[in-house]
């Protein structure tokens, strides 16, 4: 870590209450990384403001001293978005943790960025309402971080991502100005800056308040489990369910290794011999759920499901989901380390992408477990490796990069919900052309002219892409489409 200028630190100390600034090494250690713990760096100092005024003053000071700033929520991000930067102040928003207002009639909640995702739904529950996006880290992750990453979850096909579920954001620019993006109405005058700041990974402004949309809890939600003796059949079933006019609340697929690991871990009652498992949740009013489940049952049977079960009660539904939700830690039990990828593909391309992943797995000698948000095409291959073996992390990253490039080649994207952060910068060079990356840089400069907010994350420099010599694969259009790639 390189030190911050002494006069800057002195002024910062005067801005904040005594417990508002951390500089002792033992206090800084917890801030070395987010949930992508393969990347670590000790921040030179951590500021913990409690108010918008303090944040404004901190940003002003950073601008005057030309000190970069990395904003952080609860540090659960999976792409290193909150990884400290050399010589940058780490600004944690965890202390802005109040739910300011819940309006049950208008179905909105106004919250500070440090409020946990699940806490919003808990506070809304007495009114029969909830906040829809449910990333798997929802007990711990902050809503501010969710906005910065445009977080998803299990229910995106039907209920959307963060960008579809927020109305208004208050943010502070590097100039210390407070801006309001979006509105409490359905739209706002001017450009859709609410969409632009959502998923901007802390690079445009610091989010200090969010108004989220709340939804009525569905009258009923029921989950159906279907086992298949081939991944391809399960993939066909996913397409057929959609073709039958059903929009499931959630539709998840697991492969054999994931099923086995999850079953050993939480005993969800999964059929362990199966090659693929499909979990389909249908929600809505009572009658709609009965009709929907009947259709789903017929479709999966027709697609060759070897076993179909419907959760009979809430306890069984919870158990069915427990296996899926525990898939990552379950893999963590059978491998010293695992590396989680986050590509999205058109659902119909799943079989060929899985074949390619299996080939890569063999080529690199690293096992892969596949967990798939089948409803929205978001694939989470987990590469199993051992960080203690020299060179294995590098090998894993290289293989992960190839998986992401495969996703781009079939018309998908390198990240569905985890963000680019520091992790997928190289693959950004593959997904976007120089001209497109330049637009991203120009947009950042429009918000943050001195370039002090989380610099170097999310959008690679053109220099980096040139050095990498990455082949820009545009939406499936390879430079030489006649050549077989996999």
């Amino acid at each position, binding site marked *: 870590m390189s030190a911050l200028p002494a006069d800057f630190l002195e002024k910062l100390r005067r801005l904040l209450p005594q417990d508002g600034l951390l500089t002792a090494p033992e206090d800084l250690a917890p801030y070395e990384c987010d949930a992508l713990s393969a990347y670590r760096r000790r921040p030179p100092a951590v500021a913990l403001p409690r108010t918008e005024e303090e944040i404004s003053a901190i940003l002003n000071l950073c601008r005057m001293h030309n000190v970069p700033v990395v904003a952080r929520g609860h540090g659960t991000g999976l792409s290193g978005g909150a990884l400290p930067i050399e010589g940058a102040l780490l600004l944690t928003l965890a202390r802005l943790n109040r739910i300011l207002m819940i309006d*049950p009639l208008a179905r909105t909640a106004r919250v500070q960025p440090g409020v946990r995702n699940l806490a919003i739904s808990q506070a809304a529950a007495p009114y029969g309402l909830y906040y829809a996006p449910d990333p798997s880290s929802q007990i711990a992750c902050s809503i501010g971080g969710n906005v910065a990453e445009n977080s998803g979850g299990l229910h995106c096909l039907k209920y959307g991502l963060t960008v579809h579920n927020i109305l208004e954001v208050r943010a502070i620019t590097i100039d210390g100005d407070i801006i309001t993006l979006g509105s409490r109405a359905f739209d706002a005058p001017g450009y859709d800056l609410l969409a632009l700041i959502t998923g901007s990974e802390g690079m445009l402004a610091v989010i200090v308040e969010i108004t989220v949309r709340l939804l009525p809890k569905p009258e009923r939600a029921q989950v159906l489990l279907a086992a298949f003796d081939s991944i391809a059949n399960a993939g066909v079933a996913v397409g057929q369910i959609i073709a039958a006019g059903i929009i499931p609340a959630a539709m998840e697929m697991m492969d054999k290794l994931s099923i086995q690991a999850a079953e050993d871990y939480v005993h969800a009652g999964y059929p362990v011999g199966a090659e693929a498992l499909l979990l389909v949740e249908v929600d*809505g*009013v009572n009658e709609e759920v009965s009709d929907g489940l009947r259709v789903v049952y017929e479709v999966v049977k027709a697609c060759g499901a070897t076993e179909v079960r419907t959760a009979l009660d809430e306890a069984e539904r919870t158990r069915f989901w427990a296996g899926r939700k525990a898939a990552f830690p379950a893999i963590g039990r059978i491998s010293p380390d695992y590396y989680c990828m986050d590509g999205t593909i058109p659902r119909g391309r799943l079989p060929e992408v899985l074949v390619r992943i299996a080939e890569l797995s063999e080529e690199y000698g690293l096992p892969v477990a596949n967990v798939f948000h089948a409803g929205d*095409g978001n694939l989470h291959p987990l590469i199993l490796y051992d960080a203690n073996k020299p060179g294995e992390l590098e090998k894993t990253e290289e293989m992960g990069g190839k998986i992401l490039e495969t996703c781009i080649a079939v018309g998908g994207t390198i990240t569905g919900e985890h963000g680019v952060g520091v992790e997928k910068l190289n693959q950004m060079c593959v997904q976007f052309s120089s001209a497109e990356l330049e637009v991203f840089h120009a947009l950042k400069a429009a*918000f943050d002219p001195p370039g002090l907010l989380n610099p170097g994350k999310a959008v690679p420099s053109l220099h980096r892409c040139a050095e990498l010599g990455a082949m820009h694969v545009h939406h499936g259009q390879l430079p030489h489409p006649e050549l077989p790639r996999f």
Partner: protein
Amino acid sequence: MNIHDQWLAATGERVLQARAEKRKLSIRGSGSKGFYGNVVDADTLDVAEYAGVVDYQPRELTLTARAGTRLEVIEALLAKNNQMLPFEPPHFGADATLGGCVSTGLSGPRRPYAGAVRDAVLGTKVLDGRAQVLRFGGQVIKNVAGYDVSRLMVGAMGTLGVLLEVSVKVLPCPESECTLMLEMPADRAVEIMNLWAASPVPLSATAWRAGHLYVRLSGTESAVQAAMQKIGGAKIPDGPAFWQALREQTMPDLAMRPLWRLSMPTAAKAFTALGQPVIEWGGGVRWYGTDMPADTLRALAKQAGGHVTLFRSHQPITQAFTPLPEPLAALHQRIRLALDPHGVFDTGRM
């Protein structure tokens, strides 16, 4: 070179020429929404020729089409597969295009319950002010790589560049739909729209006009039947015609000029002092025909957390939208320059 590549090359030349001659280009599909926004003094760049569905995958729930593709063509294609555009866009003319729909960002009656145009847009291909062809987003529902420039283009009124292609998420058509009518005053209707939206009722549109609340229910036959029992009121014989007249503004209540659109938090009180409104979007949009000064209306809306648009007028419109406060206005200017540094598309339409 096929006709689309030829068009694109010629249009790129046109942009570069405009840049060299310091002229501005106003982008036009069919002109069906030419009334919307501020009047502009610029050369017209027609994009209607750049038409055609590029890709439609019913099982992926995605459709990609060139900007000049007529909405009618898209909707007919979707209907064959029992699918629809979730945002139920107003056409305001038989030849309305996808590009015009996305550029104006206008959504129809289903918006509060199924999302707006911007919610359905997954990706765009754009010609920027340097005549570069750029792609943002994609054809998948979940995608967080790069800033969301696709959604930035929605409602930008052609001031950031030329939309060439748009990918949108589509949805299956509901199995059954029915429209109910209940008699009640405006403020009670606003309250009830909000109360129903907070409970598991399969709403797909709500409106109030002339003393009556109209409610459309959509879903499986059984779900719609159950909700009808819950809500009560009288089933109107031609529901689709009612919602179409509201969406296309052909009902006499919306013939008033000037016509103001107040976009409000859904639960805001009904401003009866402004005259009889038409209310839609669960209370989120209220239409008024009034001669009251713009400033008065803007102040009123602002106080309630909303904003005002002068939607239609017999006079040329010079200030359609609520002006942005500083520092937001300066930020908008910088964002515009990021995509169009020479101001080719800086027509002042918004």
